[in-house]
């Protein structure tokens, strides 16, 4: 514990010291914004889950099955299983990636500190990515507890025990991967995990609307055999049932979860004390032939972009969430808002991240016979192109899925301009202060920067999309201002963003030319 506290103290010292209260405030605000985002994502799901549950709390005995429990328990089996798995699938890569991306880990290994302390400390620092599935799990659990009318406080405490168990399970898997794999292969496995978890999201979220329409008899017919697993004599022994039993305040499962967590803790300690960052040397012997590309800079940037799980996550989220919202609400705007939100967050972050690679390898880029402006252009255009493509996907899905008015496709034009603004503004902010915290895959912005780039991009993004939606509502009785916004709003934003972006490009070029 002493070692752990020492590491925490050291970690807080090596991050850039905060100069004023504003920055401390920004950290708090960052947490609040993250919390609001999580609540925005989880509460509608919890409510939907509760609504399904209300009509499905039918005793199994009344349906002719010889089990104690309700028909709804099938969802309480599927959801925690899926989201629990998703939590592990996102927590493990997040931890492994954080360990391998930490610049100070080699140094920490040289200190007289147990490796288990270093491993656990670094893993915990990388837990943020798994918070959404865990939050969903809690919301699902609360809905179920309300339906069962059990003591909610005790149920929440029980859920927390389960979450600790999942964290320990993730830590053990993380220790295992970090121990047996090379740095790069661990990263690749992390990426595969992320893909799998995203597929889970899509599949599960697509099921929700259908479930809401299914009749009890249909559900019983589809999942009849599952009830033996959920409510059989020894079902409480199965970890896949633990969450449901814990919410139901089953004391036997309490004991089992505590015992399993302690066993996992022991293995984490044993395993992580042997952990080391292995080099990939000796794994491959043959030298693959070198191919020569016509666009070496673009190829390099694309490779680096798609090999960073953080970027993949950003891109996948920006596609998956809008489509989910679109399919649930059957409204383009609810999906488009998420595109604007994610694109505004990730476009600037991606361009900064691409530039930060050059900072890490500096002065390599300065030695190459490439014009600085070309480098800048590529780093701005790649994130713009990626998120334009993401937006196009959402438009196409909306067109075929909910019969979107084809005129909405015109919104791509101002959206490109907004994304370009976001991309260049990100580069400008990064180059203005390139000595940022590299202790992790993401490039960190402070509060003012976040507001100036992400919030502005978000507003511009909405301003490019909403007026097009408004076009559908224009009739003879519409007010003039309404018509004016609908017709001219996006094009005004296009002009504004073009003007601002031109200025930002000029300032960024100046900074880059003086980058030493």
């Amino acid at each position, binding site marked *: 514990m002493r070692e752990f506290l020492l590491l925490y103290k050291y970690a807080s010292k090596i991050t850039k010291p905060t100069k004023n209260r504003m920055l401390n405030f920004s950290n708090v605000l960052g947490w609040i914004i993250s919390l609001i985002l999580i609540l925005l994502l989880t509460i509608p799901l919890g409510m939907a889950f509760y609504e399904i549950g209300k009509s499905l709390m039918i005793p199994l005995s009344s349906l002719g099955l010889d089990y104690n429990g309700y028909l709804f328990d099938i969802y309480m089996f599927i959801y925690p299983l899926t989201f629990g798995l998703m939590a592990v699938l996102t927590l493990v890569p997040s931890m492994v990636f954080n360990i391998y991306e930490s610049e100070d880990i080699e140094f920490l290994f040289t200190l007289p500190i147990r490796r288990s302390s270093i491993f656990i400390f670094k893993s915990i620092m990388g837990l943020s990515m798994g918070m959404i599935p865990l939050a969903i799990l809690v919301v699902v659990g609360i809905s179920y507890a309300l339906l069962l009318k059990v003591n909610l406080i005790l149920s929440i405490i029980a859920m927390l025990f389960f979450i600790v168990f999942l964290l320990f399970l993730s830590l053990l898997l993380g220790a295992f991967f970090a121990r047996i794999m090379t740095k790069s292969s661990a990263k690749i496995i992390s990426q595969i995990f992320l893909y799998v978890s995203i597929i889970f999201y899509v599949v599960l979220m697509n099921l929700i609307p259908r479930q809401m329409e299914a009749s009890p008899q249909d559900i019983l017919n589809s999942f009849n055999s599952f009830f033996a697993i959920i409510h059989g004599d020894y079902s409480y022994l199965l970890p896949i049932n633990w969450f449901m039993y814990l919410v139901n305040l089953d004391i036997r499962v309490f004991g089992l979860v505590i015992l399993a967590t302690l066993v996992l803790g022991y293995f984490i300690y044993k395993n992580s004390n042997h952990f080391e960052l292995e080099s*990939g*040397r000796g794994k491959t012997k043959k*030298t693959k032939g070198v191919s020569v590309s016509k666009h070496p800079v673009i190829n390099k940037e694309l490779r680096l972009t798609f090999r960073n799980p953080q970027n993949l996550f950003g891109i996948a989220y920006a596609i998956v969430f809008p489509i989910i919202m679109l399919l649930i609400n059957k409204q383009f705007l609810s999906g488009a808002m998420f595109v604007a939100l994610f694109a505004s967050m990730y476009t600037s972050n991606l361009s900064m991240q691409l530039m930060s690679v050059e900072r890490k*390898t500096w002065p*390599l880029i*300065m030695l190459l016979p490439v*014009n600085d402006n070309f480098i800048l252009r590529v780093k701005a255009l790649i994130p713009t192109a990626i998120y334009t493509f993401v937006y196009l996907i959402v438009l196409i899905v909306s067109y075929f899925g909910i019969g979107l008015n084809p005129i909405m496709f015109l919104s791509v034009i101002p959206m490109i301009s907004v994304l370009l603004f976001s991309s260049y503004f990100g580069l400008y902010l990064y180059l203005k202060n390139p000595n940022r915290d590299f202790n992790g895959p993401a490039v960190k912005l402070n509060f003012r920067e976040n507001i100036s780039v992400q919030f502005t991009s978000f507003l511009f993004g909405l301003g490019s999309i909403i007026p097009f939606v408004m076009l559908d509502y224009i009739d003879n009785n519409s007010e003039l201002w309404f018509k004016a916004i609908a017709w001219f709003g996006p094009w005004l934003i296009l002009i504004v963003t073009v003007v601002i972006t031109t200025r930002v490009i000029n300032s960024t070029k100046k900074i880059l030319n003086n980058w030493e």
Partner: protein
Amino acid sequence: METYIKSVNLTKKFGDYLAVDKINLDVKKGEIYGFLGPNGAGKTTTIRMLTGTLKPSEGEVYICGLPLKDKEIEIKKMIGVIPDEPKLYEGLRGNEFLDFIIGIYQLDKKETISKLEELTNAFGVDYLNDYIGDYSHGMKQKLMLISVLMREPRVMFLDEPTVGLDARSARLLKDLLTKIAQKGSTVFITTHVLEIAEKMCDRIGIINEGKLIAEGNLDELRALSKEGNTSLEDLFLELTGNEDVVDIVEAL
């Protein structure tokens, strides 16, 4: 003989600190020039200014007769630089990095790949399929060296190139640099291994506290010694004012 590296009153100030003070260099075609100096003397800063990664506060740089200020891209195509620390794109594989370099410099595919094979065999590089992030310092250094040597640049700048290399690779590098210079390329090398400078370099420049305090071949440097020192190590210590090393060791 044609001048390949020329600097005129090259100066760099970081705030009030004068890191490099009016350095004038004139390195000829086919010459191996050793640039020596104690830690913090200004060697790396000078190389960075000569290669265009740092803008001089004053002075001019000419490479192969072209002014660096105006012809940066053309000059970068002609030079090869091995920085003091091989920082490469860790997310790329070794062969992808070489692919990137070949593409950037628009090298002839067939010719370069044949050179590349010779170099990878010579340096024992059989890990090009692996991610650079998994390489050790020495492995990265070899990849960096190969990426420069395969281009056969007209001017090579090497900042401490043998750091991290095994004995065989270090020896190979020394022999290759000598061969490259014989073919007409110019090599500008900084090193703390004075034996390398003594054996390889045609001329040596010694920098101390940002000033070029001595320059010439080994005999010319020996002539500068007031104490009759003949080895480069003793000469270096005498010229840079670090002769008290023996006394310090004894006191310790």
